[in-house]
């Protein structure tokens, strides 16, 4: 069995991998959902757009579900504290996601303009709200969240839902929505042609630039205005997980300290910028597949940046600093981390293999002709 301390770090990386997988896969179909009512102006155009993700959105959504399950299994305290603390935000994500399965599957089963337009806006909500809220959630994690534990490790969240919607968090929400929509636009440009593709390329430029601007604002704000957190007691990475056994302080600039300790991590925000720039330029040159790869790299860079800034913190507490959750003390037991590590190692390559196969079977442009030919079976 791999030693406990190493496994804790591996799991921090694996949660990152699952988040990146979620952002790349479910992100592109959420982005397509967000763009749907704007890029598609007639029913046929909208059906073309929906059918670019029709065969895949369900598999992609499992990245989200598995990510949730993996956090439950590997970081049970984070799962418990974040989901119950962010109660209304989580319900908003959940209820927004409700619109997706039914929106995709039910929309085109009835010939009625109002019915279809209702589900189109439902797909918009299901595509735009989750990334917005995840961004806001990350914005709050970076600032610290008001919660504490009692002696039985029962968690108490003392903030409010409206408190989550502070200016810095909202900027992070814009970063997240912009990057996901940008990524979705590149995917859409790759899978369509003609006027839809043209509009998707315009959207790619627009949201790519919005991403670059908001990411820069968030970075500057983080540098000058957001205090980070530091563990001030000695860290024993191999110790049993008990979040009350350490002491923590809040310090200006602490979120940037990791970049000084490990200069290689500066590559992460750089990849985010370069991916965005390359994605914009490549999409405009109609190199749509490479544009998609570039925006995927951009997402990886952004998530990596957030993770690297906060390491080893996962969910700092602003009201009771020592209750903060870190990769060292909010994790599962050694055995569970080990089993989940092997399970991931075995199944992740299989998942990537058959997902790629599914995309290759459905590869090619989705056209108005395709939708008409498959009137009764397409979405």
């Amino acid at each position, binding site marked *: 069995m791999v030693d406990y301390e190493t496994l804790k770090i591996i799991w921090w990386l694996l949660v990152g991998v699952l988040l990146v997988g979620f952002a790349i896969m479910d992100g592109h179909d959420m982005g397509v959902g967000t763009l749907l009512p704007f890029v598609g102006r007639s029913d046929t155009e909208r059906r073309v757009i929906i059918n670019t993700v029709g065969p895949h959105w369900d598999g992609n959504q499992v990245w989200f579900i598995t990510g949730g399950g993996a956090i439950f299994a590997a970081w*049970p305290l984070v799962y418990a504290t974040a989901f119950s603390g962010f109660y*209304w935000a*989580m319900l908003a994500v959940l209820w927004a996601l409700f619109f997706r399965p*039914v929106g995709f599957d039910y929309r085109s089963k009835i010939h009625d303009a109002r019915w279809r337009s209702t589900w189109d806006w439902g797909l918009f909500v299901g595509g735009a709200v989750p990334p917005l809220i995840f961004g806001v959630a990350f914005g709050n994690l970076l600032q610290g969240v008001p919660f504490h534990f009692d002696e039985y490790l*029962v968690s108490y969240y003392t903030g409010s839902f409206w408190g989550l919607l502070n200016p810095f968090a909202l900027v992070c929400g814009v970063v997240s929505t912009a990057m996901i929509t940008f990524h979705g636009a590149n995917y859409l440009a790759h899978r369509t042609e003609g006027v839809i593709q043209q509009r998707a390329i315009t959207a790619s430029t627009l949201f790519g630039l919005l991403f670059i601007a908001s990411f820069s604002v968030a970075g500057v704000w983080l540098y000058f205005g957001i205090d980070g957190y530091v563990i001030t007691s000695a860290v024993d990475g191999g110790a049993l997980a008990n979040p009350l056994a350490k002491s923590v302080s809040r310090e200006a600039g602490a979120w940037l300290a990791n970049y000084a300790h490990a200069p290689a991590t500066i590559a992460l925000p750089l990849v985010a910028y370069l991916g965005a720039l390359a994605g914009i330029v490549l999409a405009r040159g109609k190199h749509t597949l490479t544009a998609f790869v570039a925006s995927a790299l951009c997402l990886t860079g952004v998530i990596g940046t957030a993770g690297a800034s906060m390491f080893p913190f996962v969910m700092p507490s602003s009201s009771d600093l020592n209750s903060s959750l870190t990769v060292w003390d909010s994790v599962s037991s050694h055995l569970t981390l080990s089993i989940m590590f092997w399970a991931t190692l075995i199944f992740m390559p299989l998942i990537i293999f058959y997902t790629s196969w599914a995309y290759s079977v459905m590869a090619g442009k989705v056209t108005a002709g395709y939708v008409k030919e498959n009137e009764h079976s397409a979405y």
Partner: protein
Amino acid sequence: MVSESLVDLSRLQFAATAMYHFLFVPLTLGMTWMLVIMESVYVMTGKEVYKDMTRFWGKLFGINFALGVTTGITLEFQFGTNWAYYSHYVGDIFGAPLAIEGLMAFFLESTFIGLFFFGWDRLSRQRHLLVTLLMAIGTNLSALWILIANGWMQNPVGAEFNYVTMRMEMTDFWAVVFNPDAQAKFVHTVSAGYVTGAMFVLSISAWYLLRRKDVEFAKRSFRIAAAFGLASIASVIVLGDESGYMVGEAQQTKMAAIEAMWETEPAPAGLNLIALPNEAGMRNDFEIKLPWIMGLIGTRSVSKQIPGIVEIKEKNRERIISGIEAVQRLEALRKNPADAELKARFAERKDDLGFGLLLKKYTKDVSAATPEMIEKAVNDTVPRVSPLFWSFRLMVGLGFAMLALFGFAAWYSVKGSFADHRWLLSAAVWSLPMPWLACELGWFVAEYGRQPWTIYGVLPTHLSVSTLTVGSLYGSIAGFVGFYTILLIVELYLMVKFARQGPGSLGTGRYANESAHA
């Protein structure tokens, strides 16, 4: 202390959303195999009608599946949102099967379901059949891992309490996976799903036959459903008996309540066919008893005794009193975690910790529990008898009614005359709700019967909740009621619309009602 209404509302929300989710799951479980069978016949015979069957029943399956996915995410979220302490306390064990379910099963099912619907023109016949098969395997593996998680709640094996991390931790993964409770539950539950899929196809096909519409299509569908249904209902009943046996080993309490068995009887115990349980008097006002049967089902022997409710409560009283000591010793140990003597003293009483925690419902300081509180906690340890007693009997009754229906359907299928027996076709149409009702009752018995625990003997339900306000619960319940009502109306509308239209909705030009297509 956690407020009663918070606990009650959290339970209500979980029960309602879980039972709602299970309106869609059993049909998915059963339909995937029905589709595999129909498509296999298509690949082997090359007859186009079997492809149409796969596509048409697949269309109805898809309408159902969409809501299954929608409502399934709710359950995953809810452990974190509403049951935070539960998630902390047992996430080390419970989270693993849920995550593996995603990795091993749900990815498989969800990736291939896309190709099932969209891949007809892009895949060879054999490859498409493989896709359908993988979808079915994924669906069933998904049920396996969920029921491993649920089985652990009923019979928490392979885990141990850790006083440093203040939670249960896994000690033996394979014990969790091969938990006899989980295995028995899995086979019983998926078989019930197969019955649901079979009933769905049987009923709707019978409806077409009664109207003499798309007769060849409906006849072929009916036959497959009758054969698959008969095999499945037989397996539900036999394997249900197997889970009865497991309940007997791991959870005598549930069994005693299901059977309204107040006093321990000399082995082998009789089975109450019908009784009027009197909760206050701890007796039955009336009963019709079948001798021996209960002992045989519960213990697979004629000599082992099954404890009655009175005896179980007395044992639990001892464990609660011992549990008070366990809680005190734990609290002392948490203050001095390095003290070897405290460690040893806690270890002696560790197994009764959960029973001590039952008192947390009545007092924050367990060591100050009064005899009245202990009495209340003892009474809590056995769930109310009447709801379990009657739900269980209704479920079993439905099972046997379906056995009769599928028996006749299969018999007349073999004879080839089923389409001429209008009574049989009518019975099949009217039986449509039966499997759903039986499935819901089954879950009610399993979960209500586990009370007052979320993890039997380990974690009381009232400690498992999140520290939310009652207002949040009312708000979220209102939201779920609103969403779920609208979704159900939309789903039923589409389901009825396409079921009525029949295979004409495929637009192939071979069936009735083509013009009515959408």
